[in-house]
């Protein structure tokens, strides 16, 4: 229900601590990071943006783990297909 886009924090606003400039594929917008005041993001970290607010930080380790799982499945699948292909040649 919710359009949330990942963006990279480029810089914090010099005067307003709850604003940060975020980059999405070369497009930049000031985003309110007030909802992350417990653990404010720093430049280089990624956040999820929804209607001009950062709702959450993107945990790079979890993202990498998710990718590893998917890659593992992908690899297993490719191995199976390869095995299938080889087994067909009688």
């Amino acid at each position, binding site marked *: 229900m*919710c359009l*949330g886009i990942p963006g990279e924090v480029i810089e914090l606003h010099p005067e307003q601590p709850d604003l940060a400039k975020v980059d999405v594929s070369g497009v930049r917008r000031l985003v309110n990071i007030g*909802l992350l*005041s*417990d653990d404010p993001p720093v430049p280089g970290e990624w956040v999820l943006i929804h209607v001009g607010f950062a709702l959450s930080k993107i945990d790079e380790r979890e993202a990498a783990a*998710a990718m590893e799982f998917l890659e593992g499945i992908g690899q297993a699948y490719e191995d199976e297909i390869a095995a299938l292909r080889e087994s067909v040649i009688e």
Partner: protein
Amino acid sequence: MRFVDEFRDADKAHALAAKIAALCEPGRQYKLMEVCGGHTHTIYKHGLEDYLPESITLVHGPGCPVCVIPMGRVDDAIHLASQPDVIMTSFGDMMRVPGSGGSFFDANAEGTNIRMVYSPLDSLKIARQNPDKQVVFMAIGFETTAPSTAMTMLRAAREGLTNFSVFCNHVTIIPAIKAILDSPDLRLDGFIGPGHVSTVIGCRPYEFIARDYGKPVVVAGFEPLDILQSIYMLMVQLSQGRSEIENQYSRVVPWDGNLTALKAIGETMELRPYFEWRGLGFISHSALKVREQYAAMDAELLFQVPGVRVADPKACQCGEVLKGVLKPWECKVFGTACTPETPIGTCMVSPEGACAAYYNFGRMNRNRVPEAARVGRS
């Protein structure tokens, strides 16, 4: 685009499709509900159903905060916007939703000043630039968006803005899910859980679904691989007879949610005793209103709102579609009297309503990928 493109990789999709198909018990039908309108939109936009076997049916749920707004509330909003010196601000999603006399676009044609904004904070900018006008923000959305409204109100209070108020139509997701679970018409096997709502409320609120109803829930991200992986995780649970809450979207969703966001909501808003949901009727403690301490920003108090209950048009079957009882094309007026151009109900107007998604993206013969087509029909 990082964190987006990797999760749209077709090769991994084929692998997941094979795994999902392999978990389907011969002769068994599976019904999985994606609660969230954003998921419905992704499913159709990327043609995700091509990767699923026929034995898995995706049922579209009521998690579309635009779809569940009754016509009477749209009328109320237009009434507010018609007051002298009022500028209403609204997200794009609401602009075409029909009230009994037309949509926000139609109202603008008649003279109201309803402006589209990307963020509730933009309303504050407009309020500052127009000190002689009253800016009313049409607040919609589930718990995902409520914190943003809350933060905006807190900011307005800090700045001492006196010409800004909120017409609060925020709704909460758990009562809607409970209404679905208690609905006798539905037999669901599991839930694809809302991803972004969960960044705010966390995963604990769903525990009752597994514990009391025995249904598994996987909180899912919004890229097509996220959804496909979540379906895979649900199928694994079902094949093992488990019903647990799992978090596929762990890169974004913290298990405990966002405390700061919940506090902001708590400070500025409180639950209404009941609220009418289009299609689901009156549900208690399912929507938010502005707290008394912030009454100066409550548009419903500042202005008189008619509050007339408007029944849905007789032909409209949005309620059943929202509950997942009917598929969009099973609605009697789907595609003929009710189209995106001439919508009767909100399911057709909202960009992530099931009917709009199906009409705009899915209205065609399925070309299932080989991995999914291999599963025999029951």
